[in-house]
């Protein structure tokens, strides 16, 4: 399990993880004071769904379904007059974005993730925890993104938090449209090309 976690960290900066990390960052930004529940929901949603896909209990979502899930995530994350249900909206937004992200994900397959893919059918529920370890490793940069807000003075933070939420949910919505249109593939393709 620890091996998978470290292999996840190794993959975090590779282009193959961009499709997980970009929506993940947007979820953290949109989470306002509930960044950590949002992040946890994102990782858990991604882990459960990718485990279901890998163990062939669930087929891969097509671009339209994944795009619609991103749209739901963006709408739920959009700021409202009252922040009463912020924890619930952050969690729902995180889970839906997590599921959508892994549906588009072509993972980097190193040694331990290769082992997991070879055995996940037999592992059943154990495979879920292994998948969670790998995704925790990949999403470790999200913790650093959330920590950036600890460096910002509370006064300034109060002023920027709402515009940031608007930006994050609007960007998620744009991403949703790109995914439905299939244009995200060009984006990921270019990102990979530039990184080589």
């Amino acid at each position, binding site marked *: 399990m620890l091996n998978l976690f*470290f292999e996840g*960290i*190794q993959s*975090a*900066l*590779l282009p*193959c993880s961009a499709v997980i990390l970009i929506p993940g960052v947007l979820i953290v930004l949109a989470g306002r004071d509930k960044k950590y529940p949002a992040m946890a929901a994102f990782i858990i949603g991604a882990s459960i769904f990718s485990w279901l896909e890998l163990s*062939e209990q669930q087929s*891969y979502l097509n671009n339209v379904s994944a795009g619609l899930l991103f749209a739901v995530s963006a709408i739920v994350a959009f700021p409202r007059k009252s922040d009463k249900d912020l924890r619930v909206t952050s969690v729902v937004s995180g889970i839906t974005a997590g599921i959508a992200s892994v549906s588009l994900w*072509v*993972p*980097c*397959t*190193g*040694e331990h*993730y*290769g*082992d997991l*893919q*070879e055995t996940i059918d037999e592992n059943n529920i154990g495979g879920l925890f292994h998948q969670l370890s790998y995704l925790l490793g990949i999403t*470790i*940069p999200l*913790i*650093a993104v959330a*920590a*950036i*807000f*600890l*460096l910002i003075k509370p006064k300034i933070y109060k002023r920027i938090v709402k515009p940031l939420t608007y930006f994050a949910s609007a960007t998620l919505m744009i991403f949703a449209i790109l995914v439905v249109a299939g244009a995200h*593939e060009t984006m*990921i*393709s270019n990102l*990979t*090309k530039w990184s*080589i």
Partner: protein
Amino acid sequence: MKRTGLGIVIIFAVVGALVFSRLLANKDSEEAIEVFKDNIATDKAEPTTNVDDKEAPPLRAPKPELVNLDGWLQSDATGINSFDGQVRIVQFWTFGCFNCNNTYPFLKEIYQTYEPEGLEIIGVHAPEFDWEKNPIDIQNAANEKGITWPIALDTNKENFKAWRPENRGWPLTYVLDQNGNVRYERKGEKDYERLTNTVKYLIENGP
């Protein structure tokens, strides 16, 4: 102040973990090749000492085909049957794939060691992105990475999908015996010991 300090510690810890894990990844690859070289040296000094060598690798699938290819690079082959009689490592790869890159140093070592004894490697190039489809770029990438074995062009990923339909990632590695049957398969990097043992068994004992 406490808040800021905590933020700085978290950010440094994450950046440190990312850098450290990258350094560790490079070291792991080098170590795997060293282990392979050591095993070969031991084998030459004390042949047939490994019990695993005597266990026949199981038959996993009968004679898979490579169909509707867009041609070959570095070979005059017409199909996978052109290599019948030889033990074949078939690797589905694409030149932009990070994990595929990590396997080439090992593949070069095993090719150098076992090619004179009848091993052939077939790299089936199945591109993930459009910019990986141009044969000139594939040839340049092969030259740059020191890939000298035959390359089959599976531009539309027809074979990539047919050989393992539920698969999404690269590399995919197979060993075919002298009759063309699958005796080893693997998703992802490494597992070099099992791969080497399979090749060695087939070369020494036949299919």
